[in-house]
């Protein structure tokens, strides 16, 4: 068994030697081995490869000179393998580069022959070309970008209620069939040559044909000319794109940006690090995306009762909003979530003062814990709920900036309040509520103080590090330099605002703006955001309740037997 990772790997050539090549495409549990033999900032895909090779004790590997990370993975793996080969893959496509690839194929064939003692058999080679042309019926969602691991793909398929097609870098492997007999490739004149010469020439020409076939695949981003990638997005049946980037891989981020400017097809970006994903953020992103495409499955049933409740089960707090048929908030509660979403939701319900839970007809849950609340009738992502709630509170709003405990989001809305676009922070905590909480600890002040104190600054300090850990040491040295606390806090507020603005830009947000979440209570941060957007930002009376309100509105729609799309009670 010989492992490979890239669609340009000459799998069929190895089959000609009677060797089965298997794709190494599963995620890693952790990066323990990789951490010991290389740097943590190598692309996660290659770190996962190192884990897979070591964990599964793979002894043979064929790599392609794809990128810096692959080259270095080769360097660190090569000492402990029985056979490892790094094939040079040209970046450009022309007659010379084809010749170069042909030379490389030959070099690999020789190396493998010498290592294995086997010889090449044309029939085995030809038989291994088993390509089924991709056949897609009907509408589908395409996954593009850097390769996705097996489990991530399975997760995506479980989250999307329609066909999901994998078009990632290594998933478009497709080659034409080779000639049945190598000599079929010879010209009539060449067939006049002595038999032995014919054999040699035929094999050479087949190799050359094979090199050309490999290069004729849809180019990946690592190729110099990427024009032909257009076909990936040029399909009327393509409903939406899930664009995947890998942490510490630079290639695909560029394409995502390019596509964003060029295509009208709805797109959501997910970045993973090739470990088993925590489903939380992924399901919110994909869920929100699916909902924005109008693909939400209605699960609600008609029920009687006067009121409708939404529960927003966040990482820090759980909020409940209860509304009446006209969408007025009649009761609400906020509690700390604690360790379990279910417990938090029960606690919040118990704190309702004006409404008897028996009078609640339907409950919709949103937020991180939305799928773990047993008494909720349905769940909707916080993206869609925030949008719904915000539009109810102020229909002029086109962009919602939500600064939560662990997540920041920017959601842009169209004039009907539908989600147009959204962006969330990646795993890192920079710019989130957690970030300010940590800094408050360093500064030895509490969170309430931090939201006030930043307003009274005098010296305009900058905190340049985006990373929480680095920013902390910056703050420590500012304290050591005897800088004033309000000035430092103002610097932190600015950095939170700046970080948030990158999300706003990614979501292509425009005015009017609304801020929600715990961050909206921080007047210093709101002020810095206002400076950056150049206009006043609307902050609702209770900025934590927006998501729960949206969920409650969905509950009301459901109870009235209306799908999310048709519900036009919003104007009522």
């Amino acid at each position, binding site marked *: 068994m010989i492992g490979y990772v890239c669609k340009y790997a000459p799998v069929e050539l190895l089959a000609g030697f009677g060797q089965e090549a298997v794709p190494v495409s599963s995620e890693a549990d952790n990066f323990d081995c990789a951490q010991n033999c*290389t740097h943590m900032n*190598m692309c996660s895909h290659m770190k996962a490869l190192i884990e897979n090779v070591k964990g599964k004790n793979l002894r043979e590997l064929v790599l392609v000179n794809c990128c810096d990370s692959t080259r270095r993975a080769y360097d660190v793996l090569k000492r402990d393998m029985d056979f490892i080969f790094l094939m040079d893959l040209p970046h450009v496509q022309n007659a*010379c580069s084809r010749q170069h690839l042909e030379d490389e194929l030959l070099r690999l064939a020789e190396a493998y022959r010498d290592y294995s003692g086997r010889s090449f058999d044309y029939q085995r080679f030809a038989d291994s070309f088993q390509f089924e042309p991709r056949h897609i019926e009907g509408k589908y969602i395409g996954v593009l970008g850097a390769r996705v691991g097996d489990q991530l793909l399975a997760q995506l398929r479980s989250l999307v209620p329609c066909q999901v097609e994998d078009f990632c870098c290594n998933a478009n492997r497709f080659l034409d069939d080779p000639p049945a007999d190598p000599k079929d490739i010879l010209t009539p004149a060449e067939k006049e040559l002595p038999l032995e010469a014919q054999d040699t020439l035929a094999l050479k020409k087949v190799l050359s044909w094979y090199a050309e076939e490999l290069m004729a695949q849809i180019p990946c981003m690592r190729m110099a000319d990427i024009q032909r990638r257009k076909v990936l997005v040029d399909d009327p049946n393509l409903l939406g794109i899930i664009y995947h980037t890998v942490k510490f891989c*630079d290639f695909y981020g560029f394409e995502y940006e390019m596509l964003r400017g060029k295509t009208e097809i709805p797109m959501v970006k997910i970045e993973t690090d090739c470990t088993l994903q925590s489903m939380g953020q992924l399901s919110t992103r994909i869920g929100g995306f699916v909902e924005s495409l109008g693909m939400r499955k209605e699960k609600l049933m008609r029920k009687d009762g006067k009121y409708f409740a939404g529960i927003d089960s966040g990482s820090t707090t759980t909020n409940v909003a209860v509304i009446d048929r006209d969408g007025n908030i009649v009761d609400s509660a906020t509690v700390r979530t604690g360790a379990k979403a279910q417990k938090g939701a029960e606690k919040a319900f118990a704190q309702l003062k004006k409404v008897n839970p028996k009078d609640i007809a339907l409950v919709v849950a949103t937020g991180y814990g939305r799928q773990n609340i047993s008494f909720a009738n349905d769940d909707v992502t916080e993206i869609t709920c925030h949008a719904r709630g915000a539009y109810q509170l102020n229909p002029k709003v086109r962009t919602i900036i939500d600064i939560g405990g662990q997540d920041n989001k920017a959601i842009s809305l169209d004039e009907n309040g539908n989600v147009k676009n959204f962006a969330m922070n990646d795993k890192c905590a920079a710019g989130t509520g957690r970030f300010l909480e940590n800094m408050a600890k360093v500064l030895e002040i509490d969170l309430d103080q931090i939201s006030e104190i930043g307003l009274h600054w005098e010296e305009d300090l900058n905190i340049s590090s985006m990373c929480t850990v680095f920013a902390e040491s910056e703050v420590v040295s500012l304290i050591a330099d005897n800088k004033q606390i309000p000035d430092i806090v103002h610097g932190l507020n600015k950095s939170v605002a700046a970080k948030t603005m990158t999300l706003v830009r990614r979501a292509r947000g425009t005015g009017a703006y609304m801020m929600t979440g715990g961050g909206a209570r921080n007047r210093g941060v709101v002020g810095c955001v206002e400076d950056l957007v150049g206009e006043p930002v609307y902050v609702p009376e209770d900025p934590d309740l927006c998501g729960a309100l949206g969920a409650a509105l969905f509950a009301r729609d459901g109870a009235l037997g209306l799908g999310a799309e048709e519900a036009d009670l919003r104007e009522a």
Partner: protein
Amino acid sequence: MNNSTVEWFGRIATDRISKSPAFARHMLADVFRGFGVVSRLKKGPDLPGRGRLMYSCNEMMATSLLAKKDTVLVSIFTPCEVMHAMDLNLVFPEGLSCYMTASSCEKIFLDAAEANGVPESYCSFHKELIGIAQKGMLPKPACVVNTTMVCDANQLTFRWLAEYYGVPHFVLDVPQHYDERSEAYLTRQLRDMTAFLEEVTGRKLEKKKLAEVMACARRTLENYRTILALKAERYESLKMTAHMIDSFAFHVLLGKKEIEEDSQVLIRDLEKLPKKRQALRVLWVHVLPYWQRSMAEIFNYNDRVEVVACDMTFDHLDNEIDPRYPYESMARQILTDAYNGPADRRLNRALRYARDLNCDGILYFCHWGCKQTQGASVLAKQKFEKAGFPTLVIDGDACDPRNIQDGQMVTRVGAFIEQLEAERA
């Protein structure tokens, strides 16, 4: 300029860049020029040869900012002898990033690039460069030429730039290993590159001129070998920037008469220094954070510790250029470069020079986003230490102050120097 002046200047420049890029370009060009003239004429702590090299590089950077006809945008490892022989203007944007950071106005560019979706984990030289273009600080070139050698960032940034300006793009696809076939493949491409340049600029390459440039390049590299040999026995009081300047001058500007002359002056300067190696001697692997105040305080003009050389200046000294075969020579020059091919090649080269230059230890600098360097860091430490060189692997950023932990770096470098001192004693 001292640090506070630089910061003050950076603020002014940043303000101008956001208001009027054209004005800011001229202003920065004047400053680079002026600074070059000062370092050439004024007697400072640096050797006269260093001042001249600085002047030559600054002149080039200044020209980069001013829109000129027939300008080619090249990456640092692109062989530029053909361009020099055709008298084309070169812009070498990685260098421009360095200069912008040195002028303390990097932030506006880095922010612009990130706001436009350049990945955060991207090499900051290239991130800054994209920002420089987006902010209108890089005049539109006639075309873009780059190699695929060394790192992915080359590929991505230069393709992006060619698209951004809508100009023709030529890619030299560099094979990983060196054999006759690879040489033939690259030689053909280099000839095609000449044809491409002729077509884009309408100029003709004269064979004789190319042979002259190649001969000059050959002599210049010979001079550089001499410079390193002299440095092997001497202490030179210098600042970190000098090594970056060397890597620019002896790559992109290789084949230029000025650089040959500058290198001769430097040889004469070095010959005058006493044969004595009093300071601790460090070999630096990869780029240097010359902008970082704390690092500059440790390494600049310090008679306790000296950065003797940086591996970005001796990556290409193993090959002899033969002016009669310019294309084959250039191809070999690239294919045998220490930065091409497997990590071992680069590490072995560094090790050889560490020995030849009588170094006490090796500092391996993992620049933010540079996977090719980071990825080999564990191998490097093992290899160097096994060969008897204490080695410090350190994470930092030669361009972007936002990616570093200054305090930790100072502690680690300090401890490393103490370790070297203890070993010497």
